């Protein structure tokens, strides 16, 4: 864990965002302290603190004096909105650029998209099904 190119604090922040989006971390749930982070992953406590500071500034986490750090209400919705926005520029745009480089016509791309999109709309029954039922905003 934490061995990529990104600074470790950013990897921690991304991991927490991911946990909130996936529901592993629920809103109003307490997150580990920076000390617990540091000893669990053998990283500098200041690094964990930096990740927390970033998430607090974003409104994903908040601190309760003397109690610890918690996931803010509305954090999941906010993170999903942000990701949906970035999906087009970060995921779809490069894919379309590659299609243009390879001279793949729009019709081929869009007919593939329509078929493939229908397939991925049916998530594997084991995992996300329970959650999708409780929160319809998932697949907007």
């Amino acid at each position, binding site marked *: 864990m*934490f061995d990529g190119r990104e*600074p470790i604090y950013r990897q921690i922040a991304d991991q927490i965002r991911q946990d909130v989006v996936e529901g592993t971390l629920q809103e109003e749930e307490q997150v580990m302290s*920076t000390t617990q982070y*540091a*000893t669990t992953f*053998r*990283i500098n406590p200041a690094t964990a603190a*930096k990740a927390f500071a970033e998430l607090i500034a974003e409104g994903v986490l908040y601190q309760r004096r003397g109690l610890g750090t918690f996931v803010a209400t509305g954090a999941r919705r906010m993170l999903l909105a942000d990701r949906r926005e970035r999906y087009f520029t970060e995921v779809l745009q*490069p894919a379309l650029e590659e299609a243009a480089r390879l001279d793949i016509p729009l019709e081929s791309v869009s007919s593939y998209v329509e078929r493939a999109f229908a397939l991925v709309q049916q998530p594997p029954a084991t995992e996300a099904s329970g959650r999708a039922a409780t929160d319809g905003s998932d697949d907007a």
Partner: protein
Amino acid sequence: MTGPEVVIQDVSVAFGRTEALRGVNARVAPGAITGLIGRNGAGKSTLLASLAAFRKPNAGRITLDGQDPYENAGLMAATCLIRESGDFADLNTGQALALVTSVRSTFSRPYAEELLERFRVPRRRRIDKLSRGQRSAFGAAIGLASRAPLTLFDEVYLGMDAPTRYAFYDELLADYAAHPRTIVISSHLIEEVERMFEYVLVLDEGRVLLNEPADTLRQRGVRVIGDERAVEEFVSGHTVISRQRLGRTVAATLFADMGSDLGADAGRRAAAKGLELEHVSIQDLFVHLTSGQAADPPARAAEAPSKEPA
């Protein structure tokens, strides 16, 4: 932030004709954990011994909170240097604990006892009769339990077995979080410990090669792999610290920040040319920078750690 302001100005130390430190300028970030990295003979131990005032520099000046630590008992009480060799050879563990308890006001004997238990150091045995790993573990326990505002570990975990090393890392982080202080850990083996560092100071042949936040350094190593001509075009204008060739394929390691030096679109530009970009670990970067074969060594870099915006 606790821990003294450590300033090293133009410090040179020579042993006879051997120059161990040659005009070192550096600041040690107060209240942070700094990794002091360098090859054997780079001057790490000499620098730490100078910080602990075990030795007076031949030239230059070291100050802790503006004062010279040399023969300054008050300041020395706030500094703890743990050396691999250990400094208690003819005492047994109990006598050594009693000695440290009597001279160090910040020393926690209960914590030391707990650490010796955890590191499985046999009790009531002479320090010089312990195995190398046990002696290191004993030193580590003393160093942690001393809770000195300036704590210096010189290659302390060498010789410890893996479970003891990991126990040491965990204790170091937990106790540092509870009692923040300035900690400097020297080593040439950094893979296991680099994530614990907030700052990294690299010494090479008695000089400061780098002194910067670990996160900054972590982003500096980029390896570009692909067809020779495309690689050379991509890396032109950047600092290449190593080149490996396999036929027409070249892997060039750059000392360049992925974002600010190569530009935010670096990944895309590389992909468009069929090049692969790889992350280079601090350990690899260190090996390339200090191998003496750097294709194009970086300029001696900033000597004061620049505080990143939090």
